[in-house]
Every structure is written in C-alpha cells, then in structure tokens.
C-alpha cells in the first residue's frame, strides 16, 4: 500500500541552524505516527513543511500521492482539504463564532449551494464528534483551553480529511483534559479511518495514540519503533526521554 505521507531526505535550516538533516519518514493509511523530540528539535518545522507553510531547502515530500513542491496554489489548496491540521495554539478565529470558525474551511471547498444545503449539518456533526454541540453560537474567548482544543479539532475534521496532523495537541492542558483529547484523537481516527501525524513531547499522549514513534534528535531520525520498544531501549539519548 502506498504511504499517505512520504518524506525523503528533507533538509531545512535557518541560517547556520540546521533544523532538519536528511530526514526520512512514511505514514501508512490508518496509522498514527508520533514524532517525539525535545523542544526546538524541529518537530513543528517538520509538520509545517509537510503542509507547505514553510519552504524546505531540499528533499521530497509526497502527500496523498502528490509531490507538494510541484503543486500550483490551486492544487495545493485542493490537497489541503484532505489534510486536517490542529495547531498548537488552536488558531481559532477569535472574531468569529464557533459556527463561523467551523464553516470557514467550507467556503473554499464547497460551492454556495453545497454550503446552503449541508454546512449546518456538517458543523453540527463535527461538534457532536468532539462533544461540544452546545457551544455552536459561542465565541472562542468564552471557552476553556480544553474546549478550544476540541473546537480546533472539530474544525480540522469538518472536511473529513484523510490525514490529520496534530502539533502538540496536549500542550498546556491538565492531565485529565490531555487524556480526554488523546481519547478523542483515537475515536476520530476510528470514525474517519484517517491517518495521523502527532508531534508531541507528551509521553502519555504518544503512548495512548501512536502505533509507531520516530525520535527526532538534532534534526535526524534517531530511532523508530513502537512506544513500548523505545521505552525499553538502553540507548542513553532515548532513555533520557523516558526517565
């Protein structure tokens, strides 16, 4: 089976700071791949390169069978409809209601008639998925951190993407809410049968959600295995994370 995301020899640097060095990875359909690394190790840069929010220095990135560096802006926009993205800061539009936040991605990808007929149902379904139907007419500022994260996830889900990218999904949340978000990520994957790329340094979240983990150390793919196997590793650099 062809991987949904394949990265080959990716390099990215900011001046003299080489953030990613010959990085390789692949995610298969329906799989949850986690990238574990220290703060500043290049995890967020990697995920932003994959969605083309940052340009890479060299390397190949195939997303859903398309080389994203060869796509024009219209093709890239169409591809982005199939890739959901959950930002670390949630990035909810704070001047819009929750309904408007969720409807926003539909503006570009659905026709006016489609939106008239189906937008309301799509918004309600996405909110039901994250258990926050009652917040539909509220503003983001009225919600707690955990609720905002769920709404951001609902917005990422509204176009029913084939791949979802999570950038530090549990950062800044208390342990109970973090667990709730991790469970939500699993239930979403079950319902939509989507693949996921999870960037995190929260071991509990990675343990709960991932099928496979890549350890990103100094911009390289240092190790790759299941969470349990990496946990048992005697390598001091890997052990450092789990101790």
């Amino acid at each position, binding site marked *: 089976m062809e991987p949904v995301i394949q990265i080959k020899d990716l390099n990215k640097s900011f001046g003299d700071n080489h953030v990613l060095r010959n990085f390789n990875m692949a995610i298969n359909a329906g799989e949850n791949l986690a990238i574990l690394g220290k703060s500043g190790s290049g995890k967020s840069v990697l995920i*932003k390169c994959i*969605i083309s*929010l940052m340009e890479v220095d060299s390397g190949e990135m195939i997303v859903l069978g398309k080389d994203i560096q060869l796509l024009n*802006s219209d093709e890239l*926009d*169409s591809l*982005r*409809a199939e*890739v959901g*993205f959950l*930002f*670390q*800061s949630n*990035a*909810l*539009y*704070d*001047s819009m209601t929750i309904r408007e936040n969720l409807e*926003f*991605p539909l*503006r*570009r*990808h659905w026709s006016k008639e489609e939106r008239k007929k189906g937008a309301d149902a799509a918004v309600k379904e996405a909110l039901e998925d994250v258990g926050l139907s009652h917040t539909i007419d509220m503003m983001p500022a009225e919600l707690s951190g955990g609720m905002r994260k769920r709404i951001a996830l609902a*917005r990422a889900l509204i176009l029913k993407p084939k791949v979802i990218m999570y950038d530090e999904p549990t950062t800044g949340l208390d342990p109970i809410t973090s667990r709730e978000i991790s469970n939500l990520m699993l239930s979403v994957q079950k319902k939509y049968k989507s693949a996921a790329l999870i960037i995190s340094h929260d071991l509990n979240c990675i343990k709960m959600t991932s099928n496979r983990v890549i350890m990103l150390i100094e911009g390289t793919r240092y190790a790759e295995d299941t969470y349990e196997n990496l946990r048992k590793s005697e390598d001091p650099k890997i052990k450092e994370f789990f101790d």
Partner: protein
Amino acid sequence: MGTVKLLKQIDNAFFREVGEIAQFTARFFQTVTKPKQEWEEFVNQCFWVGYKTLTLVGITAFIMGLVLTIQSRPTLVEFGAESLLPSMVSVSLVREISPVITALICAGKIGSGMGAELGSMRVTEQIDAMEVSGTNPFKYLVVTRVLASTVMVPILSSVGIAIGLCGGYLGVNIRGHISWNLFWHQAFEALSFGDLIPSLIKTFFFGFAIGIIGCYKGYNSKKGTEGVGQSATTAVIVASLVVFVLDLIAVQVTDLLGLT
C-alpha cells in the same frame, strides 16, 4: 566610526522596508486581479472602516470648520472681506483640510486597527490556519481591507467637507448673520472642478496607502505580543507620514497641471 555604522544600518533598514512595502503592493495588484473576490468580507470591512469612523471624522470636521471660520474672521474683517468667509472655508476644506484630516484620523483608527488585528492573527497562527484551510489569507484579509479603505476614505472626506461647512456656517453666524441658502451658494460658487477632482483623487491614494501600510505591518508582524503593539504603532506613524508625502506630491502635480 560608530555613528557612520549606525547610519548605514538605519539606511539599510529603511530601504529594505521600502522594498518590502513595494513587494507587498505588487502582490496586492497580482491578487486583486485574480477571480473570486471576497465581496462579503469587503462589504464588512467597508462598514467597519466607514461607519465606525464616521462619527470621529464628522466631529473633527465640524470643529475644524467652526474654528477655521472663527479664527479667519478678524483678518478678513480687517480687510473688509468678511463676505468671503464662506468661500474661504469651502476652498480650504475641500482642497486640504478635510482630505488630510480625514486621512490622518483614518491612519490612526484604521491603520492601527489593521496593524493590530492582522498582527495578532499572525502571532496566534490564525493566518496560517486560513492558509491550511485552503483560503488565500492575503485575498481574504489584505485585499478586502485595502479596497475598503481606498473606497471609504474619499467618501469619509466628502462627508467631512459637508459637515465642516456646517461648522463654518455656525462660525459665521456666531458674530454675524448669513442665511443658510446664501452660505451654501457662496461656498459652492467659490469651488471649481479644479478644486474638487484633485482633492477626490488624492483621497483615493491616501486610503490606499493607509490600507497597504496597516495591512503590511500587521501581516508581517513578528515577536509575539510585543510585535503586535509595534505593528499597530508603526502602522500609524508610517501611514501618517506617507499621507503628508502624498499630499505634497499631489499639490505639486496639481500645480504643474495648472489646476490651482
């Protein structure tokens, strides 16, 4: 030696900024010509720029018209030219006072608003979120705002002229007496297309400059919340300065074309 180095750095930063604003403007023209405009957001921005600034422009224009009349009266009385007050106020308001004052108010209110709003959207990744959702944030956020300020500043300036003249009418009637009809007759009689057209054209440029600079500063905001504050402040300063420079150019061009 240190001073020379510092001046060089300031020079570099200045020219880099000018280049980046030019690039941003070129991107605006590239994007605005592409199909599928965000008309709904454009109307929303017109409302925000126009309606929400109208009170401020109106009050300022009224006071300017009133003050101008009261302060000019003694000099005109000295030369026995008191009857020229309505003409003088109308020409001053149309040619210079209303366009420049309206533009400065808009630079303060709209420029800083755009700088702060887009800046905060940039640092909280909302602009990235728009891009990821397949919406062109430049078209949705920048093009609509620049077009709205380009359209609304001339309208606000025209309303400012009308309200300023009402202030002038009150000013004339504080010490003397002139009928409503005679005041407006004299005010319009003194005006020609050579006064109105250049004034209207320059307000389009003022509005465009305010929109471009406010959006440029906000869209390229960096350094978290500190950067947002900086964007808002510098948007006002640069936009106000550009308004004066454009006004100077407009006066020279009008003069060269023999419209003064």
